């Protein structure tokens, strides 16, 4: 698996939306019900939670710098929400 780590959800969401614009997804072409984001977001739980983009595909939308920042696992100190 491949991830890009962000300081917070807002930054991750913005990056996924920017990719949506680059991919010309429906929302960005005038369809308010169209897809808006490309990559799913994983949110950490706890204080000052980080967020990650789950890079399942469409890696062509990443910059060269982002490609160098890809990690194969979430950070070892990542806190998951556990309360089904």
């Amino acid at each position, binding site marked *: 698996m491949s991830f890009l780590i962000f300081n917070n959800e807002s930054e991750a969401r913005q990056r996924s939306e920017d990719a949506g614009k680059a*991919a010309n997804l429906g929302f960005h072409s005038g369809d308010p019900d169209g897809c808006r984001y*490309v990559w*799913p977001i994983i949110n950490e739980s706890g204080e000052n939670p980080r967020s990650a983009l789950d890079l399942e595909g469409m890696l062509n939308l990443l910059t060269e710098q982002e490609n160098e920042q890809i990690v194969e696992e979430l950070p070892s100190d990542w806190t998951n929400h556990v309360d089904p």
Partner: protein
Amino acid sequence: MAILPGVVASSPGYLLDGISGAYGAYSLRQLSGSVSNVCQCIRDSDSATQDFTAAELTDGTLTDFGSGTNVRIKTLYDQSGSNHATQSTLLSCPSVVISGTSQVDSSGLPWMNFDGSNDFIPLSSALPNIDKGNCSSFAVGKFDSTVAAGTNKLESILSLGTGGSARWNISAYDGDFVFAYASSWNAHTETQDTNAHVFTQIAGTTQGDWKCFIDGTEKDSATLTSGGTSGTYGIGGIYNTWQYELDGKVQEVIVFDSDQSSNRAAIEADIMGYYNL
């Protein structure tokens, strides 16, 4: 097409022509004579979208649209009204065609393939404020594998509430099917299998309690608890795209914001007849 016992439908044999009052009804089959399109799909290759009728999912129209690539479900249309369920993140949409191959069960009926990673169709916006003391849900789905004990992994077919006293989930955990209700995340557990089933939960004052069923057989009951839903919930996961994601298939989810205990047997008979359960 199965016809509900004792019901004279205005259109021949559609489930919701005989049963009214659904809060949201999502399926890859036609549930009402008054609807045409059942879903909107999106193609990975160029993000093009197209509405599909139930017939078009299996008559070649869908695979033609896919042109040998991947096609996902972006929107499940509410066949009981206008509470459509949509996923706004492309790669979180469950698949119906993978590399040109339609995702179908052994009878050739289409199903949504949830990848066990991040696929999820949220219902929390489409179906808000469900009272856990007055609700019924019917979900047709399967897990692709037994969720092994000791892995601390939970997979959810359907959730209508999260955490606290708002739970309403159908999941697999530690080798068991798990029904969650109100404050109990494991109100009922039993050994899991990987077959398709119709999972039913009903709560309300007509019935007098909460009950869960698998393929029409009552499995357990609990004291009725009233309260609204909270958090992010939906089909194929709980909370968001990364919590308790389903590695499996879903064909149909029907939710009522009412006690449907009097119609349960008829609804389940229709579902089980159609899906050969």
